[in-house]
């Protein structure tokens, strides 16, 4: 009796996996998502506060997925993601406030975001060159210093408001735009991870010396991965600035980087589904716990400690939601499991 219900349950899961793995399903999710976002944006049937939270969720997904490429898939430790976010935020804001004509803001907004991303990517490249010159944990130290440097520089440039910050941005970050950039970052990083280049990234985490000996140009792989990661941090920064309509250097300090790290490790390393989950849960939890006031800052770390004790790899560490796994990888793994089961049955 229980046996038959077990099989029907696993058959159901199987069918769910087959369904969610199809291109059609992904297309439906995309269309539903974008339709919902546009509907919310035009008809305003969702509370403005909730809309802002949704926007933050999207931005945090971009930050988490992009940092996971470095800290999760590649196994390096970067703690300066907020610094790249700051570069994107300031460049995009300077463009919309001071450079672009006021009447073409809506039209040129994607360009401003893109420019912010490119600037962050360039800075990421400059940080990556010395950091990856030698093997070891230099990246953590260099990115830690980088975060501080960015903050100090911004605090000392009067043209962008110094420590007072920069304002005057219009509220250009709409839900559809956030959805677009989030989907783009997830799509790019997912495809990167499952490409041959992605195997190179994984091999660095597994055993960097062996990777070198297998003719993988590890330095090049690391630099490219870091530039991609920085690019999306910059994109998130631009979106953040135009959602809040005010930025100052303190917003992008080490605490912000820590927030992103928490989302990565909460969701689970080397998992895109996990990153999305981590960003969603953390962002929403922070809002739900807001009434607790200062106690929030006691409760959140406590939850993290508990998570690290009971699920040290995060919610989805090293696992992936079916939707993000390419069909061929899924089929090969399934075949292998089936074969193993048959062999087990035969020996038993």
């Amino acid at each position, binding site marked *: 009796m229980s046996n038959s219900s077990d099989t029907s349950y696993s058959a159901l899961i199987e069918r769910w996996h087959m369904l969610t793995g199809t291109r059609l399903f992904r297309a439906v999710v995309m269309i539903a998502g974008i339709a919902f976002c546009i509907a919310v944006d035009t008809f305003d049937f969702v509370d403005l506060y909730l809309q802002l939270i949704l926007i933050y969720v999207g931005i945090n997904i971009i930050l988490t997925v992009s940092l996971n490429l470095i800290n999760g898939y590649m196994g390096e430790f970067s703690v300066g993601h907020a610094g790249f976010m700051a570069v994107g935020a300031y460049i995009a804001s300077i463009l919309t406030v001071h450079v672009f004509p006021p009447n073409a803001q809506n039209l040129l907004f994607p360009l401003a975001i893109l420019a912010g991303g490119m600037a962050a990517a360039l800075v990421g490249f400059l940080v990556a060159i010395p950091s990856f010159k030698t093997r070891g944990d230099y990246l953590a130290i260099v990115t830690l210093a980088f975060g501080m440097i960015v903050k100090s520089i911004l605090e000392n440039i009067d043209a962008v408001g110094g420590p007072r910050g920069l304002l005057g941005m219009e509220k250009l970050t709409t839900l559809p735009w956030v959805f677009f950039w989030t989907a783009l970052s997830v799509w790019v990083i997912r495809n990167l991870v499952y490409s*041959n280049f992605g195997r190179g990234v994984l091999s660095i985490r*597994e055993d960097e010396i062996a990777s070198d000996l*297998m003719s993988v140009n590890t330095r090049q792989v690391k630099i490219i991965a870091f530039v991609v990661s920085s690019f999306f941090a910059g994109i998130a920064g631009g979106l953040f600035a135009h959602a809040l309509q005010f930025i100052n250097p303190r917003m992008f300090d080490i605490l912000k980087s820590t927030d992103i790290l928490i989302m990565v490790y909460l969701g689970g390393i080397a998992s895109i589904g996990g990153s999305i989950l981590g960003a969603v849960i953390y962002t929403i939890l922070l809002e739900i716990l807001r009434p607790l006031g200062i106690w929030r800052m006691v409760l959140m770390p406590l939850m993290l400690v508990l998570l690290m004790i009971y699920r040290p790899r995060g919610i989805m560490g090293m696992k992936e939601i079916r939707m993000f796994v390419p069909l061929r990888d899924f089929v090969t793994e399934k075949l292998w499991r089936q074969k193993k089961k048959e062999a087990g049955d035969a020996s038993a």
Partner: protein
Amino acid sequence: MTSSEKILAVSHLKISYDSIQAVDDISFEVGKGEIVTLIGANGAGKSSILRAISGLIPYTGRITYSGKDLNNIAADQIVAAGIAHVPEGRGIFGNLTVMENLKLATWQRKDKDQIKKDFENVFSLFPRLKERRNQQGGMLSGGEQQMLAFGRALMTDAPMLLLDEPSMGLSPVLVRDIFKIIQDINQAGKTILLVEQNANMSLHIAQRGYVLETGRIVLAGTGKELKGNPRVKEAYLGG
């Protein structure tokens, strides 16, 4: 020295870790198509020599491959130049599948048709790897991992292989298999520099050998000569 043309030349190689001189003024050569073995006790500097050739550690002296100076060339470029290194402990990527492990080794190759043939070649040499091609590298047994490590080295298409302790941690039957495979690979045209603690087996298959003691070459000769040498017998072959 055999009459074959030399392909790898190491001269006055010195390697030190901080203040400890691991390798002290070593010179040797490997001819094309040869199996040359370096034997010696733990800490004699054997692995350090291979790591220096592969560009993993700094050294002084000169290492040339096919006349090309290898100093200051990055490790991945040395593989492209023609030297594949099977490291001690095999260096398998445990979370990647067998297929992915093999594919990674073709990172710098552009000759797609030849890569396809090399896959077939590796799979015919190691049918076990074909059976397990979708399995994660970390799930393989020790012997299978060693086969995968050899397979990866072959997939780089490098004409020369550096093998670091391939028999380590394997059962006696598997050790015999592994040495047979090394001979097969050599017969297929690969030049091999073999570092081993199993002096008996490695001198048996090698054309020439060098005996290392505390960073110096103390004896050199053909495999047969060294096997018959009383000093080698006493120290490495168990009397």
